[in-house]
């Protein structure tokens, strides 16, 4: 199932996170990633059903893998995902969005700013 957060453009990059890819990924890499991860989930390889996001770990299943693949294969959705792409290890950006505040050290990024500018 697509996580609730997909409505928020800040999280548009979710398909890349789910498939552990970057915006450079070609279609064949997308298909391979989706298939390989699913195969590992089927084999119950530890950790295969989890993926990293900037706000922590989330779980993935065949539905989510399929949706992620299909999102990246749709040029319109992919463009948005590339546009808003942040690496899942880039927690800074999202700290500004959270309740804790203080995340705006990284003032360069467009996202944190959007959250508190009109």
């Amino acid at each position: 199932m697509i996580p609730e957060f997909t409505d928020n453009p800040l999280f548009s990059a979710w398909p890349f996170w789910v498939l552990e890819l970057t915006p450079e990924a070609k279609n064949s890499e997308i298909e391979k990633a989706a298939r390989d991860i699913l195969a590992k989930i089927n084999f119950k390889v530890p950790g295969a059903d989890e993926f990293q996001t900037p706000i922590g770990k989330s779980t993935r299943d065949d539905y989510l893998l399929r949706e992620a693949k299909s999102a990246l294969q749709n040029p319109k959705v992919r463009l948005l995902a590339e546009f808003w792409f942040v690496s899942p290890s880039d927690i800074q950006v999202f700290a500004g969005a959270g309740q804790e505040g203080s995340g705006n050290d990284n003032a360069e990024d467009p996202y944190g700013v959007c959250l508190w500018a009109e």
Partner: protein
Amino acid sequence: MSQSKYIGIDLGTSNSAVSVFDGDEVKTLVNARGEINTPSVVRVKGGSITVGAKAQKHLHSDSKNTFKEFKRLMGTQSQSEPDDNGKRWLPEELSSEVLKALKAQVERQENCQFDKVVITVPALFELPQSKATAEAARMAGFKQVELLPEPVASGLSSGWSEQEAGAAWLIYDLGGGTFDVSLIESRDGLLRVIGHDGDNFLGGRDIDRTIVNWLIEQLVETEGLQLDHKHSDYSSVIRHFESAAENAKIKLSTLEHSVIELEFEYDNEDYEVDIALTRDELKTLCAPIIDRSIQICQRLLSAQGLQLEQLKRVVLVGGPAHMPIVQSAVQEKLAPLAQTDHDPMCLVANGAALYAATINLGCEPAADTDKADEREHQLWLQYPSVCTELNPTIMGRVIDESIKLSQVQICTQDGSWQSPMIPVDDSNIFMLEVSVKAGGKSSFIINGFDQNRQAIDLAYQAVHIVHGITISDPPLSRSIGLALADGSVKTFIDRGTPLPAKRSFAQSTIETLVPGSGQKLQIPIVQGERKQARFCRKVGVLVIDAAELKAPLPVGATIEITIEVDRGGDMRSQAFLPQQNKIIHGVAQLFLAKPELSALKTLSQNINTRMSSQLQQAFRSRDESALGVLNPLTQRLQLLLPELLSMADDVDGLQRISRELMEIESELELFESREQLSELMEECEMAYFGTDDMVKEYGRDTDKRVMQSCAKQFEQAMQNPRQGDIERLIERLNQVYHSAYKNKPEFWADVFQRWASHAHAARDPVRADKLVRQGNEAVARKEYGRLQAITNELYDLIPEQQKSQQGDNYDSGIY
């Protein structure tokens, strides 16, 4: 080691065909009569059943026991008239007879048991229709069934061997009963359906009917006969006319002239009449039908924002594709025809077989199964049977605990390559990336070794990997949602979501349910793109029966509803009542509701009244553009009204009229709400030009790219305004605006001013005050770098509560 075979079936309204793919080649099977098409006709004779051309011969002589065109009724509960045995047939039962015949044929010819199959369905088939198709396949003895939209199948088979990357092409499939058109593109090994459109009630049969009507007119003129084709007395005469018309039509695909020989009884008198029909006359007769198909193509192109010049070619599929009239119309009004050696009648079945391979739905031939394969497989292997990458992964896991595998080596079957030793890990898993031949088939074998590097004899399935194009997972063709109490639709699964799909949302009840009261809470499930439930089609219902409840369910109680759809058109729904920890499973009924004649009449009157009042207004104010919209709509409605009055209880006809009425009403409604729409368009225009300026001046490359796509959407939205599209576009524009805005040097001045106005609430007012002063200086000196640092520090001093209030405002503004 044996190679899996994959089969695909084109289950057509008039004709069906079956194809086989063996990893190298795809072919459509030729039946005992030397034909690739088996007519989808079923005849019941005593206890035995015949299918195909043999059955077709009896359509007139034994019409009571001979059935055709049941595909059009799939998904409805409508049964045939009783046959001689008194049996009334459901459309899926008849379809399953056709499938059984094809299954037997392919099993005989290929010497292989096939219990897995891909069956094609029209792209616009709705869930109940798909489900009925899957059901038919199960009745025919298939254990696993996948459905594939027909145009995707044609695209796959016509694109399989083509290397024209990036070009858009149209698949124009005019069949016996349905018209499907799809816009397709292949890039980076992926065949993508960009969009499709069509009409479930447009096809070769409509051409036949037009010819029949013309014949009846001719008979009035030449013989003075009044044949009422709605009258049941004449139904067998009309059937005869229809098949004579069809024969003439088919002849005219190769010849310029034909003669329709009619032999029938009228008023107890025998008639033999020959009527000549030329290709030119036929062209005039069927022009409206062909025009309608071309219009649908143009509608598809414009919906996708494509200019005619961008269309590279058109692939013709289906029987009527043989008609020169169709070919010339398509060439004239759309694009050149694809130069293919494919028979338009094979494309669909071939594509289905190819697709079966891409999703690993293969069967192993019985005869050449070698000894090793007869043992239970000891390895569970995962690898793609078709892939677009040149370095697919083969993953394996030992499932037979008794073998102690410690290393494996993977080799190509021809011995040209072998991998190094790969360790099998603690969980008994190994994996390796292999390289495959571009555009061809590669076969691998796996050698196993124990701890002491002694070879182990392994039993496992054959590994064949074809490098080729793939298609994205079949998308849901129409959104699925719930009808809510206020008449609106809450969309659960959007159109385009890959199948299978599953979504849950929490809803609230609007009335109290008391256990034992006999109350039932209905939650209708609908399919369609409109926000108003009545414009969508009801495809099921989830019922919460008060009798099943443990405690009363108060008004406003939360129900968590989950809808799940698989590729076979099977939809499951469930309601979870958290307060009572109870799960209710749903979708009792899943069929196309049969439109009631009386309801359609009322609806048409209602539309007529509304239309007249809009027309009057438009006349009074001499509103040319309004008339331009209303006049064609009125014409469409006027065509339907007499038809509706003379309509008997013909399910197929009712479906068609109901659909047309829904289309007309939805366009009328759009017209009625045009004022609201024009405001929205203005807002969109402002947002667009504002954002465009901002992006031109301050946008980054990605901003510009997104803006380009917005520009396209904007152009489309202005030409063909739809509320939902425009709202989404405004949202998108706001995002881009902000992204570009933050690159504007004065941006930090704006942000600073904003937080400076909250300085009074800061945790350290003295420090905040100082920062505000410094900030103002920086603004004056245009020192934006410094200002940024100051703003950040100031922001940290402002309490969360203050910020979150800002957040609320923001919510409404930006997303």
